[in-house]
């Protein structure tokens, strides 16, 4: 992997983290003094992906605009790495008419047809949809791939197993990615899943499965590259479980009392400083490079927020629009 590509990984991770940090700050800013989930410019649930950037960046390094991703309730990192327009995504998160869904969808329901990106708030239910996208690609004779991304909690849901079976039966170009961040809200992985790795579950459906430890963007990129190449070559689906980390609460406002001492350990696994130190040690990055990456990301995020704030809120008279085509 060349230096430029590795620096690109770093910058993209910083870009995503800057986005999540800024949304987090703005989300809480106008919910004081009495914290109210429905108050402020960004109301409702907010699931942020700090710590999981390596998955999105490593995966999307191998995807084109016309490849598809179905994401879960925690979608920002995937959307940004895929190339979803940050301005229109942000306007959606602020519930504005210039949002991806004209303010109807919100942060768990981002749809960008230009990037074949979508997500859903119902656990595992995006996975069969990816199978259908792959079915469409194969019927059209393209070499596009569809990627279904979900948390380790989703791997105990029926839809996950049905999707794996279908994809394998029809030998479709699907990559199933399980982001194992050790937690499903307050339920630790070992309280939900009797096996240490979900990779062997692929074998039950004739699908190669691999678990990737370390939350390292380069290792993840290599594994995703192999899976994407296999799918493009018509060799069928792959299941990858990527061990990552959830640095923040399940949703904003989650006090995380259930995490105890594990939280501090998790924070020491923040992949961005770790990757930054690695690139510095190899002479690819210095203080100026770090500062530039952060400044560039912040400027882009600030512009996206300004775009969102300048966009009007939907007019109540349009309430019934878009129910049918």
């Amino acid at each position, binding site marked *: 992997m060349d230096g430029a590509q590795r620096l690109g990984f770093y910058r993209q991770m910083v870009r995503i983290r800057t986005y999540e940090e800024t949304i987090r700050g703005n989300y809480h800013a106008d919910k004081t003094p009495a914290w109210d989930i*429905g108050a402020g410019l960004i109301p409702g649930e907010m699931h942020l992906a700090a710590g999981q950037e390596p998955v999105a960046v490593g995966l999307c390094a191998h995807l084109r605009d016309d490849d598809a991703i179905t994401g879960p309730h925690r979608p920002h990192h995937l959307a940004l790495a895929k190339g979803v327009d940050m301005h229109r995504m942000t306007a959606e998160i602020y519930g504005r008419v210039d949002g991806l869904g004209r303010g109807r*969808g919100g942060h768990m329901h981002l749809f960008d047809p230009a990037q074949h990106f979508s997500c859903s708030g119902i656990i595992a239910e995006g996975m069969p949809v990816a199978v259908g996208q792959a079915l469409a690609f194969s019927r059209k004779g393209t070499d596009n791939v569809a990627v279904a991304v979900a948390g380790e909690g989703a791997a105990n849901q029926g839809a996950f197993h049905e999707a794996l079976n279908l994809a394998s039966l029809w030998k479709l170009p699907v990559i199933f990615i399980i982001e194992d961040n050790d937690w499903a809200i*307050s339920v630790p992985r070992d309280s939900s899943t009797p096996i240490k790795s979900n990779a062997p579950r692929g074998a039950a459906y004739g699908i190669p499965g691999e678990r990737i430890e370390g939350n390292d963007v380069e290792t993840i990129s290599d594994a995703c590259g192999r899976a994407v190449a296999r799918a493009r070559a018509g060799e069928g689906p792959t299941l990858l479980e990527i061990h990552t980390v959830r640095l923040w609460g399940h949703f904003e406002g989650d006090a995380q009392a259930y995490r105890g001492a594990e939280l501090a350990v998790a924070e020491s696994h923040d992949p961005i400083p770790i990757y930054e130190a690695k690139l510095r040690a190899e002479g690819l990055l210095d203080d100026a490079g770090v500062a530039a990456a952060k400044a560039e990301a912040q400027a882009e995020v600030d512009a996206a927020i300004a775009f969102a704030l300048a966009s009007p809120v*939907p007019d109540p008279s349009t309430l019934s629009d878009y129910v049918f085509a």
Partner: protein
Amino acid sequence: MTVTETVAPSTRRLSTAKALSEGIAQEMERDDSVFVMGEDVGAYGGIFGSTGGLIDQFGPSRIIDTPISETGFIGAGIGAATEGLRPVVELMFVDFFGVCFDQIYNHMAKIHFESGGNVKVPMVLMMAVGGGYNDAAQHSQCLWASFAHMPGMKVVVPSNPYDAKGLMISAIRDDSPVVYMFHKGVMGLPWMAKNPRSIGPVPEDAYTVPIGKANVVHPGSDVTVVSLSMSVQHCQDVAEKLDGEGISAEVIDLRSVIPLDREAVLESVAKTGRLLVVDEDYKSFGLSGELAATIVEHDPTMLKAPFARVTYPDVPVPYARSLEQAALPTRERIEAAIRSLVRA
């Protein structure tokens, strides 16, 4: 119909969430066969506080955190119930019923009938419902009519702490499956805007509130306002305001959709001649239409003014606040509807 019941005197005030979990705890103390399972019901205490503190009192063998496998654990609740246990199973949001409805309507609801009454399913399936805090299309629905439409399940919908506890105890003791729907807005959560009515007096002892009996929460004579769950609180606020203007609205809290206390509605409408239904569930093919049919089947001449309803329009719940607020049965919409009914 029971006019607002005499509450066993209590000055202790609890949130609906605390009252509900206390009801479960008291039944668990009384009856070893009661246990709880669902996602995040243990250390988290239920995302909306329905099982707060139970893990400390009863431990993980009776308060069971499940994987995200709703078909699996709701089905497991059914099996446990048919073998004599009394499970209280939580589906985190009603909106997730899509992944597990077969267990609910083809199994939980039908086994007693299909077995000719020989197999009972004494199970409570509780779940959070409702919107108003911008949680968008997959996390804000009420959907009680969807459950009520299918025979075999009782459907309970408390609007306040007192009823929440008494209805939960009745639900656990009931030999039929009971779908217990608590609105997030009535739970009295510290992190969500709330009506003061979500915190109220709750007796310390165990008590029951009968399932199937509506409650007149605000007596009146000009118009009957029938509602349920969170919307009852809005109707009470509006009725109190209109009292001052000489408009007398009688507010009926249904407390359950199944059984539906049609008698209570008919009795009130016989007096007022006017009926407004306030329902946060979708407008068409639901509770409001059912209540209109109840009147028409009984005596079409009862009404002095056309039947009216304030409901959720037939639109998925939008994220943007401007849209969601326009769709919800707000106090403003309720007040306007009552005013135009009494003028009619």
